[in-house]
Each structure stands twice: as C-alpha cells, then as structure tokens.
C-alpha cells in the first residue's frame, strides 16, 4: 500500500484518478484505519490530504463560514464564533466517537464514510452546507444532501475530494440543533438523528427552516415537507404536530439490532419536535 501526502488537492485528485487499483482519501482516518485493519477495504493507495493548507482551516466567508475538510471535531468545538452561529452542527460533529476520535475525525470523513447514521450529516444538511469538491476536471459545488446516495455509496466521481464545506450567512434570529437517539448516553451509533435549522422574523414567525434526518433511510434525508410544516408559523403546537407527521412520512428505515422500523419512525417524530424546540429557543435568544 502506497502512501502519498501531496500539498494541493489538484495533485491529490490526479493521484486518485490515475490509480487503476483501489485508492482512498485519508483525512482523520478514524473510519478508514478500522476498515483497513478489518480488511473491509484493501486499497493500493492512500492519499493523505491533511498537508493541503485549504483543508486545515475554518474561515469566515460572505458572512458565513468555510470549514476545511480535515478540520477535526475538537477544532470545531474550540471555534467559539462557529459554535455560536451553528451550535447544532458542532453538536452533531462532537457526537462522533470519543474525545480521542474527536481529535482526528472530520465532517468530510463522516460524510464520505457513507453511513446513513453519521451524526454530523443531518446537521450539515439542516445547515444548508455546500461542499466544494476538487476533481481531475476541476472544482464544483455539491449540496451535502446530494453526496451520500446509499450505504457506502457517494455521488462523487473517481478522483473527487471534498475540499471544504460552506455554511451560509445567518439572519438575525436563526439557529440550529441536532439530537440523536441512542440507548445509552455516550459512545454509540444513532438509531435516529435529526437536525433542524430555523430562522425567525422580528415577530417570531418562522421564515425559513431545514430539517435533516439520519438513520431512517438508506441515505441521510432533507425533508422538505417537514420544513414546510414550520415555515409561516410561530412553531406552535399545530406546527410541531405537522412537523412530526411530515418527518414520520419521510422515514423508510430498516429493522436492525439498534431499533425496529416502527420504533425508528416513531422516535423520528419525537426527536424532530424536540430538536425544533431547541433550535427555536436558541433563535429567539439571538
């Protein structure tokens, strides 16, 4: 197995694209190294992108933020401004693994590992995060919800690498939240995950919302009907009841050891309500 650590993503993309055997991008490695060891994958080439400066930083851009693809969970947590603007996204990212894993894991890795239960992905979808992708043919922008298309399946082409995620500017009264259900309190994989981002006007009416769901379908979902249930309301009981129904209608989960289909569908509604209320409370306080 070869190891390359180029200092530009263009060079990394060329390395990946020109390798005829299996090649993998190495970011934090917290999933990749486990899969290597278990021989789930046997690549002939690893391309470490942590030496590429643009992947290593969080920058403010157009009133929002750009998060490099190898920024770790611990670094997200330590960025006070990012956390204030996008507390839900940072919470989702910080639920990945232990303190040790937080020292390495990345948003891009959580997404590209291709697990429908990835904790940061529903939060990124709710946030409206857009990935900048670098490939052999150049750069393009891809919405996070369009990247993972099934378990271990991505829409990215051979040689394409996530460079960074762009988070949009925030309105005056806007915030987000992420909750997951797990049978214990720490160190577990989501049975259901839900991210909600919402914006209020001066009178407290919801003018914009996005709802992301994880672990209830073959891929993380953006649930447009759930957002519609909130937009134009004061996020009152009637709106929350509609939100629950819309979220449950979007679920098509599997039964597994972590939860049955019926349980997941039910919990998704409950979590969406609770997550929306946290986001609402935060948006009101701004």
């Amino acid at each position, binding site marked *: *197995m*070869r*190891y390359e650590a180029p200092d530009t993503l263009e060079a990394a993309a060329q390395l990946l694209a020109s390798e005829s055997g299996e090649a993998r991008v*190495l970011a934090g*490695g*917290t999933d990749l*190294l*486990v899969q*290597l*060891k*278990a021989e789930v994958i046997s690549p002939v080439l*690893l391309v*470490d992108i*942590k030496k590429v400066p643009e992947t290593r930083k969080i920058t403010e851009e157009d009133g929002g933020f750009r998060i490099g693809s190898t920024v*770790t969970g*611990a670094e997200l947590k330590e960025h006070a401004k990012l956390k204030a603007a996008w507390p839900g996204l940072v919470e989702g990212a910080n639920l990945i*693994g*232990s*303190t*040790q*894993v937080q*020292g*390495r894991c990345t948003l891009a890795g959580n997404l590209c590992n291709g697990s429908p239960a990835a904790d940061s992905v529903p939060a990124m979808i709710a946030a409206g995060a857009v990935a900048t992708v670098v490939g052999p043919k150049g750069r393009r922008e891809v919405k996070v919800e369009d990247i993972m298309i099934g378990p271990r399946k991505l829409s990215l082409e051979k040689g394409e690498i996530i460079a960074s995620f762009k988070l949009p500017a925030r309105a005056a009264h806007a915030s987000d939240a992420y909750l997951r259900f797990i049978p214990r309190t*720490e*160190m577990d994989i989501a049975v259901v995950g839900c991210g909600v981002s919402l914006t209020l006007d001066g009178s407290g009416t919801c003018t914009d919302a996005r709802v992301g769901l994880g672990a209830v379908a073959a891929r993380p979902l953006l649930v447009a009907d759930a957002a519609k249930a909130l937009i134009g309301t004061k996020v009152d009981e009637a709106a929350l009841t509609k939100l629950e129904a819309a979220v449950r209608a979007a679920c098509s989960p599997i039964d597994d050891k972590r939860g049955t289909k019926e349980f997941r569908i039910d919990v998704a509604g409950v979590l969406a309500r609770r997550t929306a209320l946290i986001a609402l409370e935060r948006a009101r306080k701004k």
Partner: protein
Amino acid sequence: MSKHHVSTTVNGDPVEFLCDTEQSLLDCLRNELGLTGSKEGCGSGDCGACSVLLDGRLVCSCLVLGVEAGGKTVETIEGMATGEELHPLQQKFLEHAALQCGICTPGILIAAKSLLEKNPNPTETETRYWLAGNLCRCTGYDKIIRAVLDAAAEMRKGA
C-alpha cells in the same frame, strides 16, 4: 516496497524509524521504538488504551498511521513522570488504587493529563465524558474518577 523513513519527536526526543504504510503509530511506538507503555486493547479506536498526544491533541495511536507522525510531536506514558518523580495523576492513581490489571492505565493517565491541561477544574460529569473513550474492565471507573479529581485538586493547589 521501500519503507517510510519517519522523523518525529517522542517525549521531547527527536527519533527516527522505518515503517510500512500499514503500520499504526501504536505499532511503531511499540515495535519500532520499543515504547511498550501504550497498549493495544481493541485496535479500532474504541478502548483508548493506546491514547497518546499528537501535537498536543489526544488521539488513539491505533487510528493514526506511523507515517502520519512525521514532523509532529508525540507524548506517551513514558514521558509522563519526571525521572523518578511521578506525575500527580500517577501518584493519585496509586493512592486511590485506581487500577487493577493496568492495561487501560497508561491510556487513562494520558487522557486525564490532556483533560487537566485544558480544564484544570473539571466536574465529575466532565471528567466522565472526557474519559468515555477509555474502557476499564476491572475497576468500575469510580476510583479512576476520584483519582483524577483528587489529582486535579492537588495540581490546582500547586499551580
């Protein structure tokens, strides 16, 4: 295939080693550098027995490739005591009998040291969450948590 020539700093000393891409940092520490204090429990980032600081950041050395340590600083359990003088955490682990078989202990000490560097006065809850990635199959954790909190108190007094 030729091996990687890795230059790094371990516990303050510049060191060099040769490794294959497949070798984890844990493997390199133990088998190339003879630093066997860091343990392999699970080898998949779940148990924390291989915890080290990489550029000051707490990580599982089983989830880092040896080659990735090039140009970085690594701190392991071997660097924790100063000569014969134990680190306050090590001393408190002895006083509280916060270990039985000892396999998890180096990782827990390194993780606890990292916690106290960031937060010299952690609550019990913060301590338990910080150490959630360090598994101990003997002690039931209670003595470990008490030892960490006691060491923190002592280190605050000394500071």
